[in-house]
């Protein structure tokens, strides 16, 4: 599905801060969306979260405990906000050398980390479906 020039994949969940979530068994893979990477422009560095870090699902006001590292372009830094509470199990080490994968393959090779969610049932409801995310993107113009 496309909204304007922005790709949205079926089968994933989304957030208003432009992360995607893919459930894999009892784990959740997280990355940033096509919209997010286009907003950022050329990504030059990805600050990965530490493995074992425990994070909270993102709510306002945002705090450091909700961050899963950050994505940097030449002139901007954008925190990656955790869509779910849980623990960081794995991070995408390839991004250390090839941060541009965030631009070229945001939904696949450019994944950022894998979480072990601690409260899927309680939190899943606040994630956006592809349709809901598409509607949200349209409001951004």
């Amino acid at each position: 599905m496309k909204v304007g020039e922005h790709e949205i994949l079926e089968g994933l969940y989304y957030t208003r801060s432009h992360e995607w979530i893919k459930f894999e068994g009892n784990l959740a893979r997280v990355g940033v969306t096509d919209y997010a990477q286009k907003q950022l422009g050329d990504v030059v560095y990805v600050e990965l979260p530490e493995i074992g870090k425990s994070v909270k699902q993102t709510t306002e006001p945002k705090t450091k405990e909700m961050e899963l590292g950050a994505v940097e372009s030449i002139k901007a830094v954008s925190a990656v906000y955790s869509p779910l509470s849980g623990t960081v199990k794995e991070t995408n080490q390839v991004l250390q050398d090839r941060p541009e994968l965030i631009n070229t393959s945001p939904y696949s090779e450019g994944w950022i980390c894998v979480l072990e969610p601690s409260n899927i049932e309680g939190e899943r409801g606040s994630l956006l479906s592809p349709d809901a995310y598409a509607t949200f993107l349209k409001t951004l113009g």
Partner: protein
Amino acid sequence: MGHPYIPNTREIREQMLDEIGVASIDELFADIPEKIRLRRELKLPRQMSELEVKRHVQAMQAKNKPFTKMLSFLGGGVWPHHIPPHVQSLVQRSEFLTSYTPYQAEVSQGMLQALFEYQSVVCELTGMDVANASMYDWATAIGEAVLMCARVTGRKKVLVPELISPERFAVLQNYASGPGLELVKLGFDWSTGQLDMSQLRAELGQDVACVYIENPSYLGFLETHVEEIADAAHHAGALFTVGVNPISLGMLKAPGDYGADIVVGEGQPLGSPVSFGGPTLGIFACRDDQKLVRQIPGRLIGMTATLDGKTRGFTMVLQTREQHIRRERATSNICSNEALCAVAAAIYTVSLGSRGLRELAEICAANASYAMKELDAIDGLEAPIFASPHFNEFTLRCTQPKLTIEKLNTKLLKREIQGGKPISREFPEFGETAVLCTTELHTKESIDQLVDAAAEAVGARR
């Protein structure tokens, strides 16, 4: 009449107001509440013509006695050297002098390349791979270095020598105070001044972020156990930071070759005038390790190519570390730095070249060595107070009971000689002592003059 720096005359200004439909200049300030409007003239000295200002400032500055018009032995953080005239004439080129930070790479290649060359020169001197485009001075560079060490290691304790320059330490205290770093001073061997290795080892726990030493030290001697200090620091997982006078690196081993992770220092002696202690030039360099590089404070200039890949060019890089992007999470708040002094340093250093810098360092050290020998031979004087090798600065102690070091200096001044910097207040444990400095500006004859005058002052025969 027009104004030399405000080209739009009153008539033109009237015309401009007219064109944009504003009745008077005052209307443009109507948004300032009347309560805070200044309805009187600022009380400032009367306006002067260019000629008057020139005469006024010249007359005022004529009350100074420049070290070029007497014999001076002051160093201690800024050091007088001969600056070849082409260095200042090049940095005074308008296009360099009147440009802002090179944010627009396409019209700023000159400044960017010159700063890249500065970074490169600093790396050659220090044995590091990465240098930033400058900090304010040596003292603030130390402050930034320990903050960086704390960020990189996640630790909060910093070990510094007790014989660190007190002024630099005072600055460091303020820089370390934000995140609440703990500064611990390490003692020294009373006969040599060398860092107390057993205390170093005792203090070096898993909580230490940084071990900092100065080489040459503030009191002029060389720290000789550098490899051991580096090993001890690294063994405990701390970073090793070394502070330098870059001129000494013409003859001294690069700190990078004895294990330093970060090198800081005062770049003023590389082509900038002493100028009453400012502008100065903070040197900041580190190893090429991503963990370090991402935490560097200040600007970095990098090499790249045009988008078509055809032509080499230079641009500011890793800007996301800086305050204009990362705001309160930036690696430092520094924005304006000392870029022009950095360019001067590059030009000065390449003018000397490898052999020139070595020879210069050797002359500075040989002069100090001769001065120490001759002064030490005088009854009532001792130089240096530490039995260690020295570079171009050394301690002079006055052991004549009735004479303080300040009185000795007063007597020297009567002979048109500015003696060393007294440290009797900073380090009372060393008695009536001063730090003296020699550079290539001194000759054997001028040192003899000092020795004669000092001998006379202490009432000794030479």
